[in-house]
């Protein structure tokens, strides 16, 4: 047992700094060749900020896919650091870094590892079994907020990243990446930038549809709601995902009314049903299980099951309006 533990630990560096991804690890400034990016409609994780990077082996190229993950070359590492701002009204005051998650594309598949930041914020250390961090920050309204932030254990990584038994990244798909980023060289569309820098091939010539941004009011409510559900629910609630057994499928591509929950009865919800009949009861958000579970913070009820201990108050009205307007 002990022997095995040590030999497993040896497979990955004990400290994040050993990978050499950063010019300044504390400030999360990547070194050259490690590409920062962001995605449309990130997953809500208790109001944490996320700093995302991709490191690909030299002279290797990923290939484009609109609705699925880019096909990344072996040796690619996807890097994501979770952090709370000291004061969300003034980000210059800096961040408390919590954990940095890596997904490493190896021969045997995508491998998840997590590094938890030390108190002095000088480096992050490998952690396989998860950890609870009692964190606090000042929110946009100047209120002090607390969260029981859970670093997932390595099995929990799989829970969200599983697709047909294999571990897969979730974010970097064509439709999630098609937005501007402020590079050192200036503002540019991420897909254009990747293509120009020979990081991405097979990019379609024609303009692809950009999905709605859930909190951008220039889009219609139903589109905003579907975008939100896609990025917050569909990693499990899709065919082949870890909630595939529910028959509730929430990805943007899903068209079946009952598949997205309309007049669908719960199967294994238990008290997650909140004494309601349907996942979505059109016109009646207060009688829709979907909204009830999104609003809850009871671990036996709430959805998603992982990644949050707080509810996403800003997103709930979008889902509410969507169901309210629905026929």
């Amino acid at each position, binding site marked *: 047992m002990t022997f095995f*533990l040590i030999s497993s630990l040896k497979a990955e560096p004990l400290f994040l700094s050993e990978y050499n991804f950063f010019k300044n690890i504390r400030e999360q400034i990547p070194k050259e060749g490690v590409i920062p990016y962001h995605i449309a409609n990130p997953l809500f994780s208790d109001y944490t900020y996320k700093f995302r990077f991709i490191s690909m082996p030299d002279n290797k190229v990923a290939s484009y896919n609109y609705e699925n993950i880019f096909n990344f070359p072996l040796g690619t590492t996807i890097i994501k650091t979770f952090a709370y701002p000291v004061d969300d009204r003034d980000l210059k005051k800096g961040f408390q870094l919590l954990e940095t998650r890596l997904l490493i594309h190896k021969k045997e598949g995508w491998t998840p590892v997590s590094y938890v930041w030390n108190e002095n914020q000088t480096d992050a250390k490998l952690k396989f079994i998860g950890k609870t961090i009692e964190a606090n920050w000042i929110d946009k309204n100047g209120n002090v907020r607390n969260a029981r932030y859970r670093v997932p254990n390595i099995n929990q990584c799989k829970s969200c990243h599983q697709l047909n038994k294999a571990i897969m990244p979730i974010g970097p798909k064509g439709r999630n990446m098609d937005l501007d980023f402020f590079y050192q060289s200036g503002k540019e569309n991420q897909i254009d930038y990747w293509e120009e820098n020979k990081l991405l091939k097979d990019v379609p010539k024609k303009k692809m549809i950009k999905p709605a941004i859930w909190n951008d009011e220039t889009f219609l409510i139903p589109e905003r709601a579907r975008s939100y559900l896609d990025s917050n629910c569909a990693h499990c609630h899709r065919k082949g995902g870890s909630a595939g057994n529910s028959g509730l499928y929430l990805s943007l591509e899903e068209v079946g009314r009952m598949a997205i929950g309309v007049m669908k009865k*719960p199967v294994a919800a238990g008290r997650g049903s*909140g004494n309601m009949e349907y996942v979505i009861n059109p016109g009646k958000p207060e009688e829709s299980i979907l909204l009830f579970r999104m609003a809850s913070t009871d671990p036996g009820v709430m959805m998603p099951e992982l990644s949050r201990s707080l509810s996403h108050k800003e997103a709930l009205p979008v889902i509410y309006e969507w169901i309210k307007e629905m026929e």
Partner: protein
Amino acid sequence: MKKKFLNIIILNIFVFIGLISSLFSNTIQPGPRAYDEIQKALIFSKPGDLIQLSEGIFEFEDGLSLDIDNVTVAGEGEDKTILSFKNQKSGAEGLLVTSSGVVLKDFAIEDTIGDAIVVKGANGISFIRIRVEWTGGPKESNGAYGLYPVQSSDVLIDSCIAIGASDAGIYVGQSERIKVLNSLAKYNVAGIEIENSYFAEVIGNTAEHNTGGILIFDLPDLPQQGGHDILVANNLVINNDTKNFAPEGNIVGNTPNGTGIMIMANQFVEIRDNVIKNNATTGILIASYQDEAEDKNYDPIGNHIYIHGNTLNNNGFDVDKVRAKPISDAINGKIPEIVWDGVVPFIEWIGISPSSRVTLGSNFTESGKADFVNLKLMTKFLVPIIHKIDNNYSNYMGELESIKPVVFLQD
């Protein structure tokens, strides 16, 4: 100050002893480090490993998970090694298993905030002498499922105990090749439930003081449906007298108070040699799925249901007038021991196609022969004016082939 120092020394000695003992034995003891130790063992075990839990009460705030094949997790007994989740703060279940060939034995999981043990997508999973329980008795706030393997195959549940689940104590969903043997389910809404599953044996169990003892269900709009080849034999299904406490909206919330065995929309189901007593609504209920389904391939009406050799006694003395309204509407007074709703496809109803959905062999009461009713709900819906229930047992007598024994792939 001095005292504090002494405390630290004592504490260190304890930590040291703990470290030493964990180096020399694989047995995990209760204590503040137990969660990390178990979760570490669950992550770093290799196929074939045994994770041994000592006697004692382990108190956990977060869920556990296992994703390594062929690992055995064993305690010292369901009454000795207790994993208590009374103060659970995260995780939708107590233990989640996502790997194959895992054996769980001789421990208990109590008071999880959601389900007790969930197993997803396993080829081979064994629960042996496991107890799952909500210790506060039947309550709507209890977790939904006790033992909950789903989308799995070669599922063995042997000599387990499930108490207090707000849905089903033992629930096998969307799985195939299943044996539920010698187990006890009590004070759950559903004692034992086999749902959307293929090739199952439910043999030698006791289901008592649930709302419904044993449920064989098939539901629409799920990745796997069309449940078939289910044998329910030699079970004791008695005194199922707990009022339905499922949160509304759940299918199981429709289970009438005091149902012995209920079959909904499955094909090839054999119910034989069970003892079914003291269930207020009825002993055996055969029903169709009544709600809308989007799925065109879903068949809401059961077929090839064969009921024989059962002893039924004192069932149907106080029918649930809300959940079993079609029964209480049709019958005044004592309800027969076996009830079929009589819903058939239209072509069978008008007689173009022969209908033998339910087949009865001999079934007994303690003093004679069991009675039966076909509620003929199809006629009631279509031509209420000619509607009459059918009490004539001999109209349904016959013999079907027995369900073949379940054979696991590795057997």
